[in-house]
């Protein structure tokens, strides 16, 4: 088995090496890939869309159709993970454990017992619960809001600097995952529940697609934001810039929610109890 695999891999490597002399040299300005479509994008992005970052304008405007289905792929992957792993438990369980936070006393409540009301004083825990590390908890509490703010900045400033919906969404999701790692899944569910995460990921794709259909309603092609000018105000060039921003918000929402829901399902193996 190993020799066959080695031979296959070596054959693939040999074929790729055989093709290497045909490739352009590294950094060659006359490489064929740089001569056909991309000069148009570079030279016309300012006058077409008023977006200096060419990557953003190509991503969300010139090739917006492509990006819409990339977002749908991410949404579908989130749903697939949910369907593979999620296990629903019956509501009634024999015993529940609650911890009184100020004193650290653990209450064991048998079936039919009175459950404490949801408040800051009591938190529900599992049998393998371990105390959180104070330093990790405090550091995470300091970092999370700034990480979220930075994510929003990355989404909003993607027109002028590296960034955009994908990066900002992933950073926002990573901030929530950091919260979930340093605290536990139950406290994260209070901030962003599973249902909200799935709804947000669907809403992100919906924002993207409905922007496209709105352009069709206004008389243009699918995702031709220039026709949104009467709605957004300003000339068609600025309308394309604003249209890119709307679409980036949709992408950011979808990516953030999918990252968080992937983490929810993987970290608790679908039971949604304790997490890492």
């Amino acid at each position, binding site marked *: 088995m*190993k020799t066959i695999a080695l031979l296959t891999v070596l054959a693939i490597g040999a074929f790729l090496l055989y093709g290497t002399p045909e490739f352009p040299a590294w950094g060659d*300005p006359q490489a064929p890939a740089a001569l056909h479509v991309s000069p148009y994008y570079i030279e016309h992005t300012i006058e077409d869309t008023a977006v200096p970052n060419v990557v953003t304008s*190509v991503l969300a405007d010139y090739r917006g159709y492509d990006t819409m289905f990339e977002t749908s*792929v991410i949404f579908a992957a989130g749903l697939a*993970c949910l369907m593979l792993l999620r296990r629903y438990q019956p509501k009634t369980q024999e015993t529940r454990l609650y911890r009184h936070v100020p004193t650290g006393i653990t209450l064991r409540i048998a079936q039919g017992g009175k459950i404490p009301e949801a408040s800051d004083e009591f938190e529900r825990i599992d049998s393998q619960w371990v105390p959180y590390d104070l330093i990790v908890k405090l550091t995470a509490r300091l970092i999370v809001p700034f990480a979220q703010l930075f994510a929003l900045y990355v989404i909003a400033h993607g027109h002028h600097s590296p960034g955009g919906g994908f990066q900002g969404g992933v950073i926002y999701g990573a901030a929530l995952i950091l919260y979930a790692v340093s605290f536990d899944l139950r406290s994260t569910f209070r901030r962003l529940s599973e249902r909200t995460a799935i709804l947000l990921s669907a809403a992100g794709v919906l924002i993207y697609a409905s922007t496209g259909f709105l352009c069709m309603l206004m008389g243009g092609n699918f995702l031709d934001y220039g026709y949104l000018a009467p709605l957004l105000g300003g000339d068609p060039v600025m309308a394309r810039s604003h249209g890119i921003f709307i679409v980036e918000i949709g992408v950011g929402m979808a990516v953030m929610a*999918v990252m968080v829901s992937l983490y929810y399902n993987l970290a608790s193996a679908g039971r949604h109890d304790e997490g890492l």
Partner: protein
Amino acid sequence: MEDLAANFLTKYNYWAFIALVMIGFYAMIVKRNLVKKIVGMNILQTAVILFYVSIGAKRDADLPIIAHGHGSASHAVHAADYINPLPHVLMLTAIVVSVATLGVAIALAIKIYRQYGTLEEDEIGERIRNA
């Protein structure tokens, strides 16, 4: 020999790409552990992304963010001054899709572990035969 050295100096990024493709593909075939296979799959993916990005690179060129002053929309922009942005766009979405597929792959691995209690391919096969 001199030819080969010149070839290496101008195209070493393709050599790295070829090495990574071979590593990733070999791991996907030979490794028995499912998580190791997923790591191999990701190395293969990033190798392909490296290939695309290195096609787009340009010597002595600027980042693909157009330098422009306020109110000077008419000044000329030369495509040769900026790195080719098209591979970046395609690969940016590919990276985010790769993390989504990674999530699905790990979900499948966890499901298999729940069913058979192991991540090793040969042990899973044994358990299927004995069941």
